[in-house]
């Protein structure tokens, strides 16, 4: 910095010593020097600026994108996880207990669809469905997930395949594709996240083995509600093969026992309505109870605009008459979850309590009947159920669980002149002992005693399971 004035001084003293005759040259020289001086000052100022900038700059960051995540997954490959699940199974019905659970007396009895072999259990070793899940971020705007199950026979079923939006404002999110509905608390959980080996009775009998799983769109919203967590959701679902939303059934043209339809047969099922035929609304609320406690309440409502079912029991009893019903279905439920996180090693002291109530109404009319005079009569089906379950970490990595589930507290069919039948409730006690061997493996011993009503007869059904489960690949986070 000091060098320039010194240097110009020296140059000036040389110039002043020159003879006056060289005035013109002197002027030219002075201009040249002034230009040089200006150029040097500019360069020095630029250097000073660069120095200042360098001083203000933060320490050199590593090569990773500073907004990014450090993780094991490579950037473009989807996260893959695989769940292995197997059971050793015994019962007191020579292997027939799974069949009895499939035929519990209720309003959805006798309405099964082909292709689902969930109930099939053999005494001894069983490989249950293997879950395979892929998930990745598609773009700044979407995430996508696909989840399939492979049965021990090699049958592949696409359980879920959906996208989620990432970039909507105001706490909004849209999910589209085939997915587990957001109703209830247990409905959204895959079997590997269950605290027990098998599905609870209300879900199984009112919604089906998977719970409510359908194709469509979901919109959820997290409004700003202070310390309270609030989630509101609405779903427009196609209404495919649900217990209260089935369409496209054919008007019967024959009987299952091979006989011809009675001459008095009349009526027909209407054509399949266009979707979405099933709408759900759900809300979840959770207060902030500090670091160790978490609580969530929920309520939901689902309505179908079309439901059809065909009843043909002539194979078992030729005296029955073939008929078909159609109308609308409505289901609703309430749920509550409480979790206590003791903060101790291996989940010791942790408590989790879940309670759900579900109720299903099918408001139908006879659309076709072998006795044509009955066409147009109403048939209102109602059934409800409760599941209450709890787990407790009594030792590090050891968990004890108890579940009581009951279906058919109300279990009736009403016709135009009043009650047509009233069936009994079926309930069950289940005890489970779970050993979390490590982050990725568990062993579970489960015993249950069911008091079931099947075809009007009471059955005491005992089941014992020993289950192992392994989770391979990305160990993804579980929602609350």
């Amino acid at each position, binding site marked *: 910095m000091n060098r320039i004035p010194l240097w110009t001084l020296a140059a000036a003293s040389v110039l002043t010593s020159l003879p006056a005759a060289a005035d013109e040259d002197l002027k030219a020289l002075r201009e040249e020097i002034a230009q040089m001086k200006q150029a040097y000052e500019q360069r020095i100022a630029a250097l000073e600026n660069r120095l200042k900038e360098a001083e203000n700059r933060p*320490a050199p960051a590593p090569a990773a994108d500073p907004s990014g995540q450090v993780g094991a997954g490579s950037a473009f490959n989807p996260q893959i996880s695989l769940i292995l699940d197997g059971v050793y199974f015994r019962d007191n019905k020579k292997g027939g207990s799974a069949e009895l659970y499939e035929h519990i007396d209720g309003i959805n009895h006798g309405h099964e669809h082909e292709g689902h072999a969930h109930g099939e259990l053999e005494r001894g070793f069983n490989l249950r469905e293997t879950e395979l899940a892929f998930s990745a971020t598609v773009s700044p705007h979407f995430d996508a997930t696909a989840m399939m199950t492979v049965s021990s026979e090699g049958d592949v079923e696409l359980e879920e395949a959906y996208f989620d939006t990432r970039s909507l404002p105001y706490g909004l999110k849209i999910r589209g594709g085939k997915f587990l509905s957001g109703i209830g608390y247990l409905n959204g959980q895959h079997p590997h996240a269950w605290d027990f080996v098998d599905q609870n009775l209300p879900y199984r009998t009112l919604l089906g083995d998977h719970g409510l799983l359908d194709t469509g769109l979901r919109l959820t919203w*997290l409004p700003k509600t202070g310390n309270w967590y609030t989630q509101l959701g609405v779903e427009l679902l196609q209404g495919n093969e649900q217990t209260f939303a089935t369409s496209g059934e054919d008007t019967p043209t024959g009987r299952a026992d091979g006989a011809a339809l009675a001459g008095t047969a009349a009526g027909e099922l209407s054509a399949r309505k266009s979707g979405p035929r099933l709408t759900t609304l759900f809300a979840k609320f959770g207060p902030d109870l500090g670091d160790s406690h978490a609580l969530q309440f929920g309520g939901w409502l689902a309505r179908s605009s079309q439901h059809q079912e065909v009843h043909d029991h002539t194979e078992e009893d030729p005296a029955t008459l073939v008929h078909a019903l159609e109308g609308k279905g409505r289901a609703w439920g309430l749920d509550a979850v409480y979790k206590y996180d003791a903060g101790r090693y291996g989940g010791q002291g942790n408590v989790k309590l879940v309670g759900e109530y579900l109720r299903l109404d099918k408001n139908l009319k006879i659309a076709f009947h072998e006795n044509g005079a009955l066409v147009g009569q109403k048939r209102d089906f109602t059934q409800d159920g409760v599941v209450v379950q709890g787990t407790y970490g009594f030792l590090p990595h050891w968990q004890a669980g108890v579940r009581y589930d009951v279906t058919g507290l109300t279990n009736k069919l009403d016709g135009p002149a009043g009650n047509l039948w009233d069936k009994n409730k079926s309930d069950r006690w289940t005890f489970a002992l779970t050993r979390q061997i490590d982050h990725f493996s568990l062993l579970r011993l489960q015993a249950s005693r069911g008091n079931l009503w099947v075809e009007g007869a009471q059955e005491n059904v005992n089941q014992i399971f020993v289950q192992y489960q392994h989770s391979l690949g990305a160990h993804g986070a579980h929602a*609350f």
Partner: protein
Amino acid sequence: MKRLLFLLPLLVAVPAWALDVAATTSSMGMLARAVGGSQVRVTELAPPDRDAHLLQAKPSMLRTLRDAQLVVAVGAELEIGWLPAALGGAANAAILPGRPGYFEAAAQVPLLDAGQAADRAQGDVHPAGNPHVNLDPGRMAIVARALAERLARLDAANAAGYRERAQAFAAAVEARSSGWRRQAGGSGGALLYHKDAAYLLHYLSLPLHGTLEPVPGVAPTASHLEALAGRLKGKPGVIVHTPWQPPAGAEKLASLIGWKVAVLPLDPPAGSDAAGYFALIDRWVEALATK
């Protein structure tokens, strides 16, 4: 209309801070407060009395993340069991990984143990590197500067303040570092339960003699303790574990080799400022100084 106009100044006056920050741990909360000053309001998601790796997502976290403008995470998969689920459920586009509202401390500094084999036979390994950077004051100073730049990007009006405070935090670390190193210098090193204080040992140039866990995430076994005892008997050192790690293995080994056992948390108390963090490092240094 007039009444509404009266309310207008209230609306403008309400937020006294510029940014809502959700910090995953109390260390990250401390850093956000130290750098953000009064311009940020910090909420900590994980309490310091339990393992941040094994937490579960819960509704109150989603509530906090829904309104946050910045998430300050430790990163490198420390929060993998709950933060992705909580971020997914919070429906807040601004704080997703890759956006300016997502900040991971581990992404700002080089990590120890990076590039291990991705083999779960070696336990709950994280090939990207050891995530527990928060106990390294030197790395935290670098993270503070990076955090200041991030805050400056989100809130340019207060950029100078963020940079000044990050500089002050780094200077405070610098002022203490020679004292810490002098106090711990020449000590025998430590055996940990899990490699969660490896960065601090590295910072103090002390040896890490191993972990009570045979591999990450697996409880101590008798044969592993025997092997450790055989290797460490007669050497100086200290066994350190956290309050939530089971003490049995440490006590057993201590009885075999005569080392002291210290029980120390990995993070400062909830809501700490820089002084709280330095007090935590003081406690660790004191426990590690075995001369």
